[in-house]
């Protein structure tokens, strides 16, 4: 039983092996030539995705050879050609076409082949400037992907047709909506390649609503600023010169994240300034570099919107000291009768137990406005006067007046201290010490 089973098993294996072998041989005989035929007997064409009016070259081949006179081409658009294994064809419209070819091989085999062809229209006209062509300014037209170097231009404004190159400029003399047409092959083309241009006055109230100029900056006019962590008054500004009239719709961006929207109507081609807002100001909680920009949704902007940056330092008290950003000029002291008291080398000669008047001029030599400054006068450590100076403009000279009562004791000092209290924490702008020398001391 065991031997019989072994024999049967060997027979079965032998049968299977033989069947497989036969299958392979049959396949080699039948499929491989068929496959070869499929590979070698085919229609090829170039370019692979032809343009309208572009010449397409077709080629048919067969491994057994083709009798040229037997070849008949049908291009799928109703046109035909015959008598050659190669054919050229320029389609006049876009579309998907089935190209068929029939021929007889040298072995007298009748063959029908076909292939799909997709014809597209890539030709177009672009303009520069792309968005806002203007009257009396050259508008550059570019015939892109045209097939010939010579183009017949019709600018749509009634001026004569121009046979010119692919890139050409034209000046419109009046505003309007113009249809520009370019004909390929020096005007021989039947395809209509067109675009429309809205030509307005380039600048002024009748121009298309557009941003002509934009500058991003911080309050000091610069595109970069370093601020301490937690600084709560950082505001970005956009100086905008616009043309025409319209509604500006924009988004302030911080590190690419939308921060706040800006919506306002802008009439009669003027200038305006928008800002990123003060409540809250730009974020300064996390140290590091930040980028601020503006995404203008309307109107479309044909130039790249600039990006400005600010750096948030780790220290919250970075601006604690901005000493000597203001100066005190012409500092003088008087008694109440108006007699000027002598000040020399920081020493004030003053009568004891009398009032002393101080007069001086605070000059802001900072580049920026100080919205609120606090002037403090101390006698030793005692605060004797404080005054708020509002809107101390860059370069402004603001007179001040104060008084102390001179106790007449030795070693008295007068301090003049000025803070910028518009910022948190306040910034020391100026400090000066004068020794008070009283009569008899």
């Amino acid at each position: 039983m065991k031997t019989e089973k072994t024999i049967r098993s060997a027979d079965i294996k032998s049968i299977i092996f033989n069947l497989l072998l036969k299958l392979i041989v049959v396949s080699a005989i039948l499929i491989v030539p068929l496959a070869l035929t499929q590979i070698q007997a085919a229609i090829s064409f170039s370019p692979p995705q032809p343009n309208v009016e572009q010449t397409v070259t077709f080629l048919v081949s067969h491994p057994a050879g083709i009798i040229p006179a037997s070849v008949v081409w049908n291009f799928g658009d109703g046109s035909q050609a015959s008598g050659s294994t190669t054919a050229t064809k320029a389609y006049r419209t876009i579309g998907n076409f089935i190209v068929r070819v029939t021929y007889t091989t040298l072995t007298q085999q009748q063959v029908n082949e076909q292939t799909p062809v997709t014809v597209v229209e890539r030709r177009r006209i672009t303009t520069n400037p792309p968005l806002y062509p203007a009257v009396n300014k050259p508008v550059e037209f570019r015939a892109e992907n045209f097939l010939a170097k010579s183009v017949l231009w019709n600018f749509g404004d009634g001026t004569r047709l121009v046979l010119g190159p692919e890139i050409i400029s034209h000046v419109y003399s009046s505003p309007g909506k113009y249809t520009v047409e370019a004909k390929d092959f020096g005007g021989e083309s039947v395809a209509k390649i067109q675009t429309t241009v809205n030509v307005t006055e380039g600048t002024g109230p009748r121009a298309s609503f557009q941003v002509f100029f934009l500058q991003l900056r911080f309050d000091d006019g610069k595109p970069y600023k370093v601020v301490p962590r937690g600084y709560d008054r950082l505001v970005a500004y956009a100086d905008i010169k616009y043309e025409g009239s319209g509604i500006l719709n924009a988004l302030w961006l911080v590190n690419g994240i939308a921060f706040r929207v800006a919506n306002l109507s802008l009439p009669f081609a003027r200038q305006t300034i928008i800002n990123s807002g003060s409540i809250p100001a730009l974020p300064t909680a996390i140290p590091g570099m930040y980028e601020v920009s503006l995404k203008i949704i309307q109107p479309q902007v044909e130039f790249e919107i600039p990006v400005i940056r600010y750096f948030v330092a780790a220290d919250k008290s970075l601006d604690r000291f901005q000493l000597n950003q203001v100066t005190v000029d012409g500092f003088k002291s008087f008694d109440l009768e108006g007699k000027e008291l002598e000040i020399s080398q920081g020493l004030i000669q003053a009568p004891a137990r009398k009032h002393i008047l101080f007069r001086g001029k605070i000059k802001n030599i900072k580049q920026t406005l100080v919205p609120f400054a606090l002037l403090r006068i101390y006698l030793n450590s005692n605060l004797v006067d404080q005054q708020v100076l509002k809107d101390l403009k860059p370069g402004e000279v603001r007179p001040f007046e104060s008084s102390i009562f001179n106790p007449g004791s030795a070693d008295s000092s007068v301090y003049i201290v000025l803070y910028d209290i518009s910022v948190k924490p306040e910034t020391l702008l100026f400090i000066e010490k004068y020794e008070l020398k009283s009569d008899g001391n």
Partner: protein
Amino acid sequence: MGKAEWLFRFRQMDCQKGKRRLLFIGVISVCLFFQSAKMGATLPEQPETEDTRIIIHTPVTTFLHGEKLQFKASVDSSISQFNFFFRQAGMEQYQVRPMEKAEDGSYIYELDTSTLAVLDFDYYFEARNGDQSYFFPASAPDQTVTATGQPSEQMPEIPQNLPSPEEEMRKMPFPLSLNGSIEPVLYEKQGDGSSGTRKITAGSNLRIFPSYRSRTGLVVTSDSNISYSSTLLSPEKKVDLSNLMIAFNQGHHSLKMGDINIDENQFTVSGLGRRGFDYTYDNQKTGFHIFNVSSQQPKGFKGFGPPRAAISIYGGSLSQKFFNDQFLLKAIFVAGKDDPGEGSGVGSSSFYTPRKGNVFGFEAESHLLKDKVNLRAEYARSNYDEDLSDDVDSRPDNALNFFTSFREGGLNIDARYYYTGKNFGSVGLQSMITDRKGYQANVGLTRGIFNLMGAYAIDQDNADGDLATPTSKDYNGSLTLGLNLSRKVSLNFGYRNDRQKTFLAGEEMDFGRSRQEELSGGLNLSLSQSAMVNIALTTSSQTGTTFPASGSSSTGLNIGGAFRPAGWLSLNPTFSYSQLKDEFSGLKITTLNTFFSSELTVVPEIVALLLMGGFNRSESGPGSAMNMFSLNGGLSFSLGRWIKIGQFSLALNGEYSHSKSSGSSVSNQRVLARFDFDF
């Protein structure tokens, strides 16, 4: 003088205060009569007083903060000196000011109440004749008059616990600081499968700011900043001289080199914060100014040294004040070249081309009747070439401006006429509106909590009236109402209407018409310095008949808050909504946006949780919604307690962003370490 002599002589009363003040005065008089407690002031030793003369004065007990209060008093016999003493609440010492004698024999002192740090102050007068003094109130300084102010606008919060001057002088900083931030990426996963372009980002600043002040008055200040960033904004370089300034000041002379602001007037040079140098002499009567700066803010180190010829502007001004500073004459000259392509932070139309030109300007200004009436006239003539690339050379043209204003109490009236020729221009102005003329008038009225302002303007182009050229006229009216309900709450409402019409040879055209309307409202809540809310709503509509004809409307809402409810938490959120609708196509662009940044102190001065993020949804039609969400933040550990030479912190940060549009979504995640230093 006995207390019975507190009877006031009302014949000197200031008519402007009105009859209501009579009642006040009576009440105050009675109060003062019965008041006997001392004010607790630290007062100088006063000379012996003989009460034989009467000071006549109408007490001022209320005022509007910011107004100029005139204190007027007279005495019934001759004296040598009249002094005004006042003391702000919280101060120990009185301030003293000599009063000026007026033509009618009375004495006057004008106090600018905007300089007051608080709203209440006490005052009294002292008339001296030799060693004898007479007071008002008679028992001053034991008894004084108290004036209480009403806030008219936001007053600054006066910092408490400021260091003593001795402490401030001890804390003079070393004039050099270095700060920076280094962020290595520890983990990154991007939705598109890419791994990012850089594994470490860094930014740093080196600031050098030495200054010197001599006893002779020479002040030398400098402040320069060199910045470094590993991520570039084209076409910048990694290292940039972002700030540069050296200034010498002595007396009336000032020489500055570096980044300076040049500001002369609207026709010559204005708001030009640029790199260069300028010298100023200003003795408050005569002013002389020369400058040479770059026309654009140069990129990187390009602005180090003299401005390059292609972007160099030079000029100067000479001014003189006359008649007790009531009249100013000024002459200005500006010339040079500009190329907007050289600037940083600037974007412009292709029509904004390199330009050159020069301009002479003249200005006359007068401040009459104690600044109640101001007049200003400006004239400028330029020779300007707005486009160096074309064949057209420089052309001359003129500009002029007349402005007058009247201010009395809460009433402000301004009026203006201007003309700017078509070919006028100045390289000292980044952009300028030319070929215009027009009239403008503004009227503002402030009464109590109300602030009402109306404005009307008529502008037109084709300023020279060329008959072959269309002329567009713009009629613009606006009304703004502000309500300062309290120091903490203010409201504002605005309405603006603008109509543009275009004419050719006197006939109105269909082309070049437009109409805009804008309605706005806002609410400001300043609940405290640590809790502020701002709400602003604007709706606009616009129609126009230029090419292409347009019609659109928009609504914008911004809500912002700044909260510091406690020292350990700060939260700054924004919420924005805007909708823009094209009335022709019906297309709507809707944007919804929120943003926040916050700091939560976990362990005071050591550990803080810092967060920043936002959500944005924009939609411009069915199926076009785009949602973006981002969150950035982490724990920050401050090492300042252990490293005493500066501020150092380590942070572990996470960044997550998710965007979804048209059915596809992308998420990016990063984990970063961050090292911040500042010393």
